[in-house]
C-alpha cells in the first residue's frame, strides 16, 4: 500500500533500491566478478579493467541505441551494419584525401539518412521494424563491402593523431574511448529520464494509440529515435576506425544481438514502454565481463558459445524471477519480508 501511495518510508527506500532492475544486475555482476577474481587473481588488474572498458565502449553505444528502440516498442538490427558502413565510408574518404573531420561529418549524414529511411518506412509506410532494419542490415553492410571491394582499407599514416587520440588516447589513465562512451551514456540517461521530448518515447512504446489520441506526433517520435540510433551506430563505427586504424567491412558483425541482450538484461522490455540507459549500461558491462572471464579462465574456445548462451538465459531468468511479483523488491525484499515475519 505505502508504495502505492508513493510515501517513502525508510523501509520503502530499501525496497525501492532492491526493486530497481539495475540493482539485481549489479548484484549479478559483483557475484560474477568475485567468483572470477578468486579463480583468476589477474582479473581485476588495471590493464584488464582497461581492456574491458575498451570492449564495453563501442558495443555500449549500440546498446544505448537498442535500449531506445526497444522502449519505443521497436527494434533495430542494422546497428552493426551501419557501424561497418560508416567506419568504411570515413576511411574511404580519408584515403581519397578528404579531411578526416569532413569525412566524419559525411558519415554522420549517411547515418542520419539511414535512420530517416528506417524511421519513415516504419512510421509512414507502417512496415514492421524487424523487417525494415533487417533489410537495412544487409544494405548497410553491403555498402561496406562495395566500398572496400572486400579488402579492409589500411589507414596507417592517413589518420591525424588528434583523431586517433579519441579512440586510443588516455586521460588520467582512463581510455578516451571509455570516457566518450560514459559521457554519452550519462547525457542519454538524463535526457531519457527527465526531458520532455524523450518521455514521448515511453508514451509511444507503452500505448501507441493513447499517444496518438493525445496529440503526440507519433511518427516524429519514431523517426527521431531511429535517427538517434543510427547516429550512435555511426559514432561507434567512426571510433572503431580510429581504434583499429583500419576500415573493415567485418566490423561489429552480430553486434545487434549483443546490444539487444545488454538492453534486455538491463531490464528493457520487449513490449515497449519500459527501460533505462543505466540498466543497459550494466547489461553491456555484465556481458563484456563474462566475455573476458571466459578467456581469462581459459575456457575452451569450443565451450564459449555454449557458456555465453547459458549466462544470457540465466541472467534474464534470475532478473525476471526476482521481479515476478512487481509489488515487492524482488528476491531480496522477499527475503527481508521473511525475516520480519
Amino acid at each position, binding site marked *: 500500500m505505502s508504495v502505492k501511495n508513493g510515501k517513502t518510508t525508510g523501509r520503502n527506500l530499501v525496497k525501492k533500491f532492491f526493486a530497481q532492475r539495475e540493482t539485481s544486475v549489479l548484484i549479478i555482476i559483483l557475484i560474477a566478478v568475485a567468483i572470477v577474481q578468486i579463480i583468476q587473481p589477474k582479473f581485476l588488474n588495471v590493464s584488464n579493467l582497461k581492456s574491458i572498458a575498451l570492449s564495453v565502449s563501442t558495443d555500449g553505444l549500440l546498446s544505448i541505441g537498442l535500449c531506445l528502440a526497444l522502449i519505443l516498442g521497436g527494434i533495430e538490427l542494422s546497428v552493426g551494419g551501419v557501424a561497418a558502413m560508416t567506419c568504411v565510408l570515413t576511411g574511404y574518404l580519408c584515403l581519397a584525401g578528404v579531411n578526416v573531420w569532413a569525412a566524419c561529418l559525411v558519415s554522420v549524414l549517411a547515418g542520419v539518412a539511414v535512420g530517416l529511411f528506417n524511421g519513415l518506412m516504419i512510421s509512414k509506410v507502417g512496415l514492421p521494424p524487424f523487417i525494415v532494419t533487417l533489410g537495412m542490415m544487409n544494405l548497410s553492410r553491403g555498402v561496406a563491402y562495395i566500398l572496400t571491394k572486400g579488402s579492409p582499407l589500411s589507414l596507417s599514416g592517413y589518420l591525424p593523431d588528434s583523431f586517433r587520440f579519441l579512440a586510443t588516447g588516455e586521460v588520467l589513465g582512463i581510455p578516451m574511448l571509455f570516457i566518450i562512451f560514459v559521457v554519452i551514456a550519462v547525457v542519454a540517461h538524463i535526457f531519457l529520464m*527527465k526531458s520532455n521530448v524523450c*518521455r514521448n518515447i515511453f508514451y509511444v512504446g507503452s500505448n501507441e494509440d493513447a499517444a496518438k489520441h493525445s496529440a503526440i506526433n507519433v511518427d516524429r517520435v519514431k523517426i527521431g529515435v531511429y535517427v538517434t540510433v543510427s547516429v550512435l551506430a555511426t559514432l561507434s563505427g567512426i571510433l572503431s576506425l580510429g581504434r583499429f586504424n583500419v576500415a573493415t567491412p567485418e566490423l561489429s558483425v552480430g553486434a545487434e544481438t549483443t546490444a539487444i541482450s545488454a538492453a534486455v538484461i538491463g531490464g528493457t522490455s520487449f513490449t515497449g514502454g519500459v527501460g533505462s540507459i543505466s540498466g543497459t549500461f550494466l547489461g553491456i558491462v555484465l556481458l563484456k565481463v563474462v566475455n573476458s572471464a571466459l578467456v581469462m579462465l581459459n575456457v575452451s574456445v569450443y565451450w564459449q558459445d555454449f557458456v555465453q548462451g547459458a549466462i544470457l538465459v540465466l541472467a534474464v531468468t534470475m532478473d525476471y524471477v526476482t521481479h515476478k511479483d512487481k509489488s515487492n523488491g524482488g528476491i531480496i525484499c522477499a527475503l527481508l519480508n521473511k525475516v520480519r515475519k
Partner: protein
Amino acid sequence: MNREMLLEIKKVTKQFPGTKALDNVQLSVERGEVHALCGENGAGKSTLMNIIGGLYPPTDGELFFEGKKIAPKNPGEAQKIGIGFVHQELSLCPHLTVAENIYIGRLPHKGDMIDFPKLWENADEVLSRFGANFSSKTKVSDLTVSEQQLVEIAKSVSLDCKLLILDEPTSSLTDKETRKLFEVVRSLKQENISILFISHRMPEIFAICDRVSVFKDGRYVCTMNVPEINADDIIRAMVGRELGNLYPPKSSCIDKTTELLKVENLSGKIFKDVSFELYKGEILGFAGLVGAGRSEIMTALCGIDKKTSGTVWVNGKAQSFKNYRDAVDQGVCYLTEDRKKQGLYLDMSIKSNMASANLKAVSKGIWLQEKLEKRLADEYVKRLSIKVAGIEYPISSLSGGNQQKCLLGKWLSIKPKIIIVDEPTRGIDVGAKLEIHNLLRTLADEGVGVIMISSELPEVMGVSDRVIVVHEGHLSGEISEDDMMTEENIMRLASGEAV
C-alpha cells in the same frame, strides 16, 4: 435559441467498408449545457464523437465550432480547438504513472526538462476533485479498471477545454465514483463548459443532462429537453416502440432442494472463506464495490486463476478444476468483465471469435468444419439479434454492445450448465439490456444456473432473485427477500456495515 451554439454538426455521413455508420446526421450543442446522446448499440454515437474528436474525417458533411467551420485532422487539432475526449475504450499508458498519463502530450516543463514536482502537484490536485484514493505517482497498471477510468476522465477534465466528450464514462464506474463524476460535471457546467455525455443508463441522463439527442441506425432522430420528458420518451425514440417494464419477472420456480453449484471456504489471492450455493431456477446476483474481489472469486471458481483452498460442487459432484478447460467441459463458464482485454480477438472474424471456446462443436475429429462454424455464428447472431455486416468481418468493426452480445453467444454455444456473467450489460443499450436480462431469465427457467456480477445496483436488484454482497474479499451478507432488496441495504453491506 437564446443561448449561444458551441458545436453544430450538419449533414454528416460516415461510410465504413460494409457499413454506413452515420447517415446525414445533425447535432447542435449549446455553450454550458450537458447534452446527452442516446441510441442503441451501433447507432453511431461513438463514430460521431470520433469525428468531432479528429480520429477520422467524415465521408461527408460539416462541423462548426463557435461558428467557425472546423475539420480536425487529428486529436491534437481537436484539442487545440478546445475539444476534450474520454474514449469508450480505455486508452492509457499502463507502464507510466497516473500523473504522466493525465498530462500526456503536455507535461509541465522547465526548458527541455520535465518539471516533476509541478507534475505531481497538478495531477494530485485534479485527482482530488474525484476524491481518488491513489497517488498520482502510482503506475497505471497497478490500478483497477475503474480507477483507470477515473484517470482517463481526469485526463480530459484537466484539458480545460470548451467541449468535453464523455463516451460511456460510467460504464465501469461504481455508484460512488459516478456520483463524484457528476459533481465534477456540474462544476464544469458552472464554468460554462459544454459536455457531450453518452450513456445507456437512463437515470444518469435525468440526473445531469439538460437536453438529449437520440440516434437510430446511424440516423438522427430528435432532440428533447430532459425536464420535459421521461425515460419512456427516450426509449421510444431509440427503439421505436414501447419496452414496457425494464426488468423480466422474478423466478417462480426456484428449487431450493437442488444445488446446481455449491462453494465452500473458497480462498484466493484477494478473497477468503467464500461459501455460497446456487439453486436450480434462480439468478444469483453478486454486488459490491469495484475491487471487492467478485471477479477473482469467480475466476478462481472456474480454474482461470489459482485458488488457494476451498471446494466446489457442481450438481452435487465435488469438482477440482485443474484448469478452465475442465470447468468448461463440466458446463461451467465465466463471461469476463474486460471485453477488450480478455474477451475479443479484435483482428479475427466474428465467427472465429464465437467458436473460440467451443472448437469441438465445429469440428469433425480434429478437423474444423467451415459449415458448422458459419452455422454456429449465424445461429447466435440471429438468436441475440446482433447487428453485424457479415460474420466474416473482424469483430473490431462491431459496436461495443454488439461485441458483448457476441461474447454471450460464444458462451451460450457451449450449452452451459452454469454461466457466470461479470458486468454482462456494461455498455449495452436499454433494448439489448432487456434482451439479455430476459435471456438470463429464460436460461434460469430452463434450469441453467446463472450468476451475475454487476456494479449497477438497479440491475442487480432488478434481475437477481437473491443478492450476495462482497466486501473486500469476503461475503458481507445476503439478501433474498424482495422487501429487503434496497440500494441502501446493499450499499451498507458493500461498505462492510451490517444491515
